[in-house]
């Protein structure tokens, strides 16, 4: 088991090194001078030269890359040009809304997706199965910002149940801040539930065909016990995988929803950085988000050991 963990950790480090290289290349392939682009058309030649010096853009590319990797290993993601603070600090300040939104969205997605998938599998081929599958697919076909706009119009503007946007006034308490995330979490959760429904259905269908399920029924166990205790527990691994991956993707992928609801999260930070050409922030955010995804992947694999005693590495 220890050797498996070490092997996976090494693999993770290799992938992260590739991620870092890609991010470095992405930012360096900017047509023209990155410093001039960052400072905009009004910048003087002296300003551009100053920024080039500050970012080390005058150094040969391999020196820049070496410095970039060295800083990265030390946890230094550079300094935001526009926010004038370290990128790590900017990301940390924006982490709470993103983490909270992801957590709330995943709870909504699981609450909808898992029961829907189980119901769909148990009623395979019947109307309920087709209706559930079609509804899940319909949810996955909606652009999050469009659904968000419709929900804001209906639930916030017409019914007044939720705040329209934002993360509460400065100094707002935790529950007030979380209250601002309910509607965006419902939007994201509804859309993400489609994938969880599909995986739960497929996983349950696999398990429902197993001998021990048939034995359970033959023993005269109630259908509820067979489905929940025998089938569902054994169908958990793929469901956990998809829940974990959805969570990892939401951490950086809720960009549109965060912007739509005016939430000061990491996604919103990235969009602002893109509009202001703040490359250190784009670079840092990409690396951190990809790192979280890779780490969550590893944790999911390790979680298998706890969930399923049959899994041995």
């Amino acid at each position, binding site marked *: 088991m220890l050797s498996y963990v070490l092997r996976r950790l090494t693999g993770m480090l290799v992938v992260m090194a*590739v991620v870092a290289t*890609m991010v470095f290349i992405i930012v360096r392939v900017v*047509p023209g001078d990155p410093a001039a682009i960052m400072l905009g058309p009004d910048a003087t030649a002296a300003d551009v030269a100053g920024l080039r010096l500050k970012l080390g853009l005058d150094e040969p590319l391999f020196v820049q890359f070496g410095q970039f990797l060295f800083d990265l290993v030390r946890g230094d993601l550079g300094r935001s040009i526009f926010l004038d603070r370290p990128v790590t600090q900017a990301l940390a300040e924006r982490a709470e809304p993103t983490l909270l939104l992801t957590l709330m969205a995943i709870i909504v997605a699981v609450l909808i997706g898992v029961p829907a998938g189980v119901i769909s599998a148990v009623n395979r081929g019947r109307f309920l199965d087709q209706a559930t599958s079609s509804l899940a697919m319909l949810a996955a*076909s*909606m*652009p999050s*910002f469009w659904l968000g706009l419709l929900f804001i119009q209906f639930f916030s503007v017409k019914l007044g149940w939720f705040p329209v946007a934002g993360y509460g006034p400065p100094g707002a308490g935790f529950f007030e801040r979380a209250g601002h995330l309910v509607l965006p979490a419902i939007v994201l959760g509804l859309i993400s539930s489609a994938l969880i429904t599909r995986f739960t259905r497929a996983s349950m269908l696999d398990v429902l065909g197993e001998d021990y399920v048939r034995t359970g029924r033959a023993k005269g166990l109630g259908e509820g016990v067979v489905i929940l205790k025998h089938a569902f527990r054994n169908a958990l691994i793929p469901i956990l995988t998809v829940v974990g991956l959805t969570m990892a993707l939401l951490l950086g992928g809720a*960009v549109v929803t965060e912007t739509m609801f005016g939430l000061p999260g990491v996604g919103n930070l*990235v969009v602002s950085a893109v509009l202001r050409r703040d490359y250190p922030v784009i670079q840092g955010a990409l690396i951190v988000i990809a790192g979280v995804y890779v780490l969550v992947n590893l944790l999911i694999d390790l979680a298998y050991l706890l969930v399923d005693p049959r899994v041995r590495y």
Partner: protein
Amino acid sequence: MAGASAPSASALSKGRIWQILWRRKAALLGLTLLVIMVLAAIFAPWVATHKPDAMRIAQRLKPPSGVNFFGTDEFGRDLFSRVIYGGRVSLTVGILTVCISCVLGVFLGVLAGFFKRLDTGLTRIIDAMMSFPDILLAIALVAVLGPSLVNVVTALGIVYTPRVARIVRASTLVIRELPFVEAARALGTPTWRILIMHVLRNLTSPIMVQATFIFAYAILAEAGLSFLGVGVSPETPTWGTIISTGQQYAGKADWIMIFPGIAIVTAVFSLQMLGDALRDMLDPKLRKDL
């Protein structure tokens, strides 16, 4: 020869495909809706009731009526015509994204799957690309390349490349070990010929399924990029840009954002239904149940 491979398109006759489609009403509905949308986009000048850019300020923000089926926007432009023309751009972005990601993905996937020495390195690159959320990587690439239709297509093509590459690699690993490939090798067939005649031909099915989903995701991603203001120019009517500009009239002229949104949902839903049906059709395990 192709029939000896992993699940292959050629394993199903055209008649059987239609038979399955007929039985899966949702897939048939998806295909029908998609064909209607594509035809409407191709024949937009004949389908649209007005010129999409014709401004009539006196007619601004008019609700749907017999003259303007979807109402008018803030400049009095006919929304129905803009949605039809917008479909041209949105669907084109989807198709071109599929083309780019399939060409790059097949190239990477076949190299990784067929040549063992390249596998580890290329798989790491594919894994690394997949660790970025799609929309985030697309935003970053468009930020670097600059916002334009061509760059949006390029960025989305790159973003979806690893999805194709991963599937193609997995299928190539299976095909590489099949007897007909070994036989071709033993006969001294050049590698490029084996790749084209034996490997690529048998990759059609998984690529077709993946292409359908990528088409759907690309339409959603383009709309998202346009909404964030980092996609195509707001003057170009795409479903995403129409919703983006219409959001400021939410509550006053909801139809501006409702109709292009319905167009996106219909296109994506149709593609997903179709992709699902194709996947089930081409998977021998699932085909028995159809």
